[in-house]
């Protein structure tokens, strides 16, 4: 290969590696901030001040949803299977909100350690399947 071209390749690779190194440094410094939400365990261990608006996420614990009969208020537990957090929300829930499904809530911790949500978002997974298959899998389980 022409020596000039070789030199250009070295230059490009060096600059690219430098850029990647810089990016890795920046990202590892920002890593915490790039998470959209805290898990219940993280919320417990990091002292998030009560009243500051944060996002928390986890699974809605099965059997934990309590709906109020005369208002839109709903109380449920979100869990990461180590710690759980009691969430109170007053509003319309997304269609995919259900037990044993992922959820991300935005709001703040109250003094009593429960979470008051202003927004509830449903997570979904990448396991798409037809209803019949889902039914069969349920039976097997």
């Amino acid at each position, binding site marked *: 290969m022409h020596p000039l*071209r070789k030199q*250009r*390749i070295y230059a*490009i690779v060096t*600059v*690219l590696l430098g*850029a*990647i190194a810089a*990016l890795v440094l920046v*990202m590892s410094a920002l*890593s915490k901030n*790039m*998470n*959209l*939400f805290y*898990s219940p365990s993280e919320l417990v261990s990091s002292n998030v001040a009560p009243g500051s608006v944060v996002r928390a*996420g986890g*699974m809605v614990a099965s059997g934990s949803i309590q709906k109020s009969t005369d208002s839109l208020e709903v109380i449920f537990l979100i869990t990461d299977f180590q710690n759980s957090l009691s969430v109170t929300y007053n509003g319309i*829930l*997304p*269609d*995919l*909100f259900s037990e044993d499904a*992922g959820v*991300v809530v935005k709001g703040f911790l109250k003094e009593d350690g429960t979470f008051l949500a202003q*927004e*509830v*978002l*449903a*997570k*979904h*997974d*990448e*396991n*798409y*399947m*037809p*209803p*019949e*298959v*889902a*039914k069969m*899998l349920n039976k097997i389980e």
Partner: protein
Amino acid sequence: MNRVWSRIKNWLIAMGSPPHFYRWATSSLPWLAGLAVIVFCAGLIWGLGFSPTDYKQGDVYRIIYIHVPSAILAESIYIFMAISGFISMVWRAKIAGMLINSAAPLGAGFTLIALLTGSIWGKTTWGTWWVWDARLTSTLIMFFLYAAIIGLHSSIENKTKGDRAVSILAVLGVVIVPIIKKSVDWWQTLHQPSTFTLTSSPSMSPDMYLPLLVCVLGFYCLFIFMLTNGLRAEIISRERDKSWVKKQFFKY
């Protein structure tokens, strides 16, 4: 082996010459269009009309047949531009610069499709149009990179200088692609979880997966057609004063 390599090399050099590529493009464009239309429509009709519904999301999950191929293609186009940028910087091949120029609007378009369809899908399933999580944000950054490449080149009068500037941006910007790919594993995002799939669950079922595969293939075919279509215009626009253009394009 050596012989095969030298043939490939000769073919590449021939295709790299604008008049040769222009002739090839003009004769094969209808075939490329036909192939793209067939595969693209087959995939979309199968996916949107005939694949089974999802047990949880119902029919709205069908957006996947538009959203996922667009996103995959958008990332692939960036990698393609980075390779072209590398070739343009090392070998100073004029065609490589033209390739970046014609690929950038397509990449921007498919990124925009992925963002908009994702937003619509998010509204119905998550309950929000937009959230600043790592996957969505990094994809938006890729869109800005595409926009920067388009803007940078059109703002530089000298085409050779423009090619060089755009190549640098294409090569350096490619780091965004692995970040987008791995963002859902590295950080907690609203987009498609990896944290909560530890519970034993199957992947997508084959009668949903196969149409998606055809869609991805169809999008790639479409890209090849669109790129050839764009590159033809780019070549003529840049070489309009050359004698071969006068002969072949203006037919003097």
